[in-house]
């Protein structure tokens, strides 16, 4: 059971290592989107600090979404997806492995870059810490929900945009709790409530999304 | 009767614009949906008949 999960994970990490370009694009996208806002809104530190959490959270979400449409697309094109679905191990493990690999490749780097951008937005160290904590919980949710979106839109023309259209509404609670956590800490009211709700939403997504994504994968490969 | 005259009714206590704007758009949406349905029904039947002729040749 776990060998299958490890095999999927190991392969995806090797593939990502071999194609560092795709990975770098997503990180630079995050930096660029976040850096555009001060140009639009103005450099005034107090203003930037107020909008910082929301901007960074939305930018991180868009950066992750960028790479989600290729979660199954490459494997579908070269036929390895069928081999994976035809493995004796349950398809849910395949989806979990894929989502976990996506989170490790595209989610974790966001956590490393976010503090730098946080400084750019004049956030205090506490706020940056909570920002990273909320992103730590938020990015896996997107990888899980993205698994459902990628499975549903497998092989469709305009798949990337369609995936975003399907998944973003479902991601709203995470965005609200995540950005809210950082606002809470900056306003001094504390972020425990937001973070615990974010954690609850993460657990719920972990429980539901893989099964629906596995069913969607079987439907798409029909 | 709530209204002294018809003009009061349309005036709607000064909020006529908003009230009739809302009710008007709702009626419009319902109307559009029904019209689209009627047109689509006719179009589907024509298309299916056309397909049927094509397949019977």
């Amino acid at each position, binding site marked *: 059971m776990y060998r299958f999960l490890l095999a999927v994970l190991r392969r995806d990490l090797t593939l990502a290592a071999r194609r560092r370009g795709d990975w770098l694009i997503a990180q630079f996208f995050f930096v660029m989107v976040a850096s555009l806002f001060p140009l639009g809104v103005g450099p005034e530190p107090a203003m930037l600090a107020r909008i910082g959490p929301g901007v960074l959270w939305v930018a991180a979400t868009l950066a992750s979404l960028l790479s989600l449409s290729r979660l199954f697309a490459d494997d579908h094109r070269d036929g390895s997806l069928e081999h994976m679905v035809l493995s004796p191990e349950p398809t849910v493990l395949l989806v979990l492995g894929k989502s976990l690999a996506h989170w490790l490749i595209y989610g974790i780097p966001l956590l490393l870059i976010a503090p730098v951008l946080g400084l750019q937005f004049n956030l205090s160290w506490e706020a940056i810490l909570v920002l990273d904590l909320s992103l730590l919980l938020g990015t896996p949710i997107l990888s899980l929900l993205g698994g459902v979106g990628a499975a549903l839109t497998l092989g469709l023309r305009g798949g990337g945009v369609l995936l975003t259209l399907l998944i973003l509404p479902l991601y709203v609670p995470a965005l609200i709790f995540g950005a809210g956590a950082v606002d809470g800490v900056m306003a001094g009211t504390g972020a425990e409530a937001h973070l615990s709700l974010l954690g609850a939403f993460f657990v*719920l997504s972990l429980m539901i999304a893989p099964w629906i994504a596995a069913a969607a994968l079987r439907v798409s490969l029909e | 009767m709530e209204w002294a005259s018809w003009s009061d009714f349309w005036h709607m206590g000064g909020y006529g614009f908003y009230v009739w704007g809302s009710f008007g758009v*709702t009626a419009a949406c319902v109307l559009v949906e029904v019209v689209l349905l009627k047109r689509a029904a006719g179009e*589907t039947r024509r298309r299916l008949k056309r397909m049927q002729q094509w397949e019977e040749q």
Partner: protein
Amino acid sequence: MNLYTYASPANFYTLAGRLIPWFAWGAGILTLWGLYIAFFLAPTDFQQSEAYRIIFIHVPAAWMSMFIYLVMAFWGAIGLAFNTRLSFMMARALAPTGAMFTFVALWTGAWWGKPMWGAWWVWDARLTSELILLFLYVGIIALWAAIDDIKRGDRAGSLLTLIGSINVPIIYFSVKWWNTLHQGASVSVTKAPSMAAIMLQGMLILSIAAWLYTIAVVLVRVRRIILERERQTEWVKALLEKES
């Protein structure tokens, strides 16, 4: 007469044909009655004067948008579980009407907000959730449009509706948590209505009218989908033959 006979598209087609006029007329009569109450029986509200009458369509539309989404999820789940083609067709037929009611709820909410709170768009919990519900509807309709294969489209749409329906309460809670500007649910099933009984009666009548209207429209749409999908069958060929 067991229920199963109407599960076959052919029988359902004729049954729906007979029912549509009843639902359509029912909706028409109840709408007139509801409007009569809304404009002629309901008193002028002391705070909001006449603008509050928009509530008579805003609340039913909001209820219907949520209710139709759940019915879609129900039909989708039945289709996924029992692989019955008809339930998928019902889900597909419901979506456009659901999206329409969501748009109406948003529009009337905004136009009610302007006189009430002075702004066309107010980021309050109910309206924002309604907006996200519209995004969910658009997502499902876009997914159905993007998938040509009917079988895959049905199942994919139903799966998306399923995960959407699990998410709707969470979205509503999180939005409410985020901002509770709205004066709280003017009518919620649990607590007593905080307004005159006549207004509640008007809204309930209009809600039933909207419900009957939805059934009529959905039945018309489902009949069209049945014709399209059962194109190859004898009874559809005979039907088309008879009409041309």
